[in-house]
């Protein structure tokens, strides 16, 4: 059995995947000869842009996909995995990006789901609960095994997922972009916790496209691009710029080339805006600000401090009260809010899939989401398909959106390209005022760079821009002025000087400007 002998029998190596190929019907090659070697007890990052094949590779390991070819060696033996049960039995655990929890069941029930016979579950839950309590104590996870999953926060649910893997005795833990759903503080806690686990000897494969995380947590990092392994490096011997270059395949402009701010007139002005959230509680309180032309005003803040409500109210999608809103010298009434589109405002919404796009529609149908009723896209009520197609093709080209055919369903595009469609559509209307909410959340570095450059270009072209983002790096990179939002109020205004980042952090935590400075 020569096949079963790993070539390099390194005692440190716990997992080796060799020449993994995986394609999907329709000619998508997700993995085209990927090699990965993971050492015992290390945190190993899998870095790559969306669509680089990271998740597919780990799904192959976890038995969710059958590879077209290639071999896996796990703990120095050839590893044939047919389904997740094989993986779990071999002590591999995986925490998916979308949690696999049953919301109406308790934590304990979720953790043993699929492992026991149902009648046994009913009888023998007590030892399970005891064990979970013990583990929760050992790892200082603070998870109550009897509470229902639906009552837990996203961060807590994630801890349940990790606990589930540990409960089944995982030696190798795979985490698929675990921080994507977490607040900055929760992310911090998670990374600390993972470090602890690794120190106790657990091996962790950490999928991400965030460079800071790689630098912060990993021992080694393997970079994937277009379904191929680029290289594996020791984290200590690399830097973010080099990683970004390997990930994207070219140099990345980490610093935006931003021109000096030119003073201009006020384009958008809000006085005393008040918004109530869905439960009727005040979410935005007496909010007043101005945005000048050729200016980006950044709204910084921890997620959930009224940013969503602010954006929705300004876009006329949520009820609000205000003393005045002025857009481009026109006083806006409550009634006008629903047609700000026509008055020169564009809006890049927080959630592209829920609000910005209609996923089963084609790329070109999405391009005309706001202009479908205007000439030349519609004449006498009939859609002009040829014009729409030509227009879409020109936008695809102009914004270098990666799509085969503009008639393709937009759901098939990667997150970054979907966001580019939204950005292209909004910017092409040459807005006077641009409302941008979380423009680069969940998209890869190449697309992030592109979207940020477009926003700056729009600013230099004269637009007034309000940028809402929970990503401080983004706020500092793009803004000319920063307003910090906490519990629906403006805590203070700060200039985007890198020295001020600590002050912004304090304001975000609810400190007043006097105590922060």
């Amino acid at each position: 059995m020569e096949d079963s002998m790993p070539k390099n029998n390194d005692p440190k190596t716990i997992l080796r995947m060799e020449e993994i190929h995986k394609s999907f019907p329709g000619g998508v090659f997700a993995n085209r000869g990927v090699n990965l070697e993971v050492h015992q007890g290390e945190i190993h990052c899998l870095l790559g842009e969306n669509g680089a094949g990271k998740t597919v590779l780990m799904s192959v390991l976890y038995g969710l996909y059958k590879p077209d070819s290639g071999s896996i060696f796990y703990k120095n033996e050839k590893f044939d995995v047919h389904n997740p049960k094989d993986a779990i039995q071999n002590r591999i655990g995986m925490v998916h990006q979308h949690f696999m929890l049953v919301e109406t069941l308790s934590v304990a029930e979720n953790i043993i789901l699929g492992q026991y016979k149902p009648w046994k579950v009913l009888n023998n839950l007590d030892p399970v609960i005891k064990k979970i309590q013990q583990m929760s104590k050992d790892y200082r996870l603070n998870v109550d095994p009897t509470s229902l999953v639906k009552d837990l926060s996203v961060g807590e649910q994630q801890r349940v997922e990790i606990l589930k893997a540990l409960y089944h005795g995982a030696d190798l833990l795979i985490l698929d972009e675990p921080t994507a759903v977490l607040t900055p503080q929760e992310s911090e806690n998670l990374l600390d916790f993972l470090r602890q686990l690794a120190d106790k000897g657990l091996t962790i494969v950490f999928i991400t496209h965030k460079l800071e995380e790689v630098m912060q947590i990993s021992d080694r990092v393997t970079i994937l691009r277009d379904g191929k392994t680029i290289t594996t490096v020791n984290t200590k011997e690399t830097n973010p710029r080099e990683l970004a270059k390997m990930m994207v395949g070219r140099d990345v402009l980490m610093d935006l080339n931003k021109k000096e701010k030119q003073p201009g007139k006020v384009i958008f002005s809000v006085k005393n805006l008040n918004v109530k959230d869905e439960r009727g509680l005040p979410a935005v309180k007496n909010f007043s600000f101005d945005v000048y032309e050729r200016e980006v005003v950044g709204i910084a803040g921890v997620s959930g401090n009224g940013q969503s409500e602010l954006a929705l109210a300004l876009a006329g999608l949520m009820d609000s009260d205000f003393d005045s809103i002025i857009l481009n010298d026109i006083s806006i009434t409550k009634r006008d809010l629903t047609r700000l589109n026509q008055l020169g405002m564009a809006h890049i919404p927080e959630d592209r899939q829920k609000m910005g796009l209609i996923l089963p529609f084609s790329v070109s149908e999405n391009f005309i989401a706001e202009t479908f009723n205007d000439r030349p896209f519609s004449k006498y009520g009939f859609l002009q398909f040829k014009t729409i197609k030509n227009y879409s093709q020109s936008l695809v080209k102009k914004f270098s959106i990666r799509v085969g055919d503009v008639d393709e369903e937009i759901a098939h595009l990667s997150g970054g390209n979907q966001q580019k469609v939204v950005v292209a559509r909004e910017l092409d209307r040459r807005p006077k005022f641009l409302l941008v909410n979380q423009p680069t959340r969940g998209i890869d570095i190449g697309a992030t760079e592109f979207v940020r450059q477009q926003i700056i270009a729009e600013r230099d072209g004269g637009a007034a821009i309000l940028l809402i983002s929970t990503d401080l790096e983004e706020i500092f990179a793009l803004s000319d002025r920063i307003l910090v939002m906490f519990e629906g109020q403006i805590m203070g205004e700060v200039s985007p000087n890198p020295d001020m980042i600590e002050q912004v952090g304090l304001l975000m935590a609810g400190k007043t400007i006097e105590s922060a400075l």
Partner: protein
Amino acid sequence: MDFVSIKKRLLKFSRSAWTPFAAIPIALGIGAIVLLISGYDPIQAYAAMWQGAFKDRTAITEVLIKATPLIFIGAGLAVAFRCSIWNIGAEGQFYAGAVAATAVGIYLGDLPRFLLVPMVLIAGASSGALWGMLAAFLKNRFGANEVVTTIMLNYIAIFITGWLVTGPMIETAGLFAQTAKISQNAWLWRFLPPTRLHTGFILALVLAIVLYIIIFKTSLGYTIRAVGINPDAARYAGINVKRKVLLAMAISGGAAGLGGAVEVAAISYRLYQLISPGYGFDGIAVSLLVNNNPLGVIFSGILFGALRSGAEVMQMNAKVPSVLVFLIQGLVVLSVVAFGVYSYVSKEKEE
């Protein structure tokens, strides 16, 4: 166009409208087993069914006559379903249309034909549309679920009809629970004597084509589809969602009401309590069968018409009880749904 894109298009096309029809042989196969178990000869039964539907010109025209109300209703429902409005009330809207059409046909019977026929049809369509808009209003104003309200409105429409045909509008002889015949000036032209095939069938085809064009080729249809898929995105894009809901229900109810008017003006010539043998409910399957494509409704409507027509003959000649006939119809719907789920799942997997 290269081969790959042709193949892609074909694949997309087959997925969108035609795959469900592949479910029919499966349903008939299962039906055959049931017939066998129940002690009937499936070959003989299906032969009778086929004969009943396609034996001669008369049989075929009867299929088309049965298909007519299904096409009206199904095409309208396709619009509502595209807008994600789950209108289960086509039955009531059909009745509303039939009542209004009968009233006009009787009480304004002296009007000349060229005036009366359009008036009967318009009365039926607007009455059905209003009945449908009632549910839309309740949804928009109070957030009442349209599935519940439309079902309730079905009962109301049917019982009002029952009251009318036994009370205020009962025929002069007063023997049966039915109205008098409508004026001859209101009758639709039966253009292929001696068969009963009438211009209402042509009207149904035209309506299906028009609704297809509206849904897929106009900006109005774009908004209806957008609201149906993602109302948040539609609102974000500046579309008035409530207005589209009202409009979709008006179109849907109007089409069903028109179907009711045509049934009165071309076939029954009068109103009675059971004027619809459940067309409004079959219409739901007719629309879903073709993925809510109004053009496809023409074919699925004819299919269901053939099933109904053939079933009657199967019952008479092969002595198969009508219950089994309904069972086979149910199997067709079920396997269509199963096929739909299957192709959805396999598509998901592919991605």
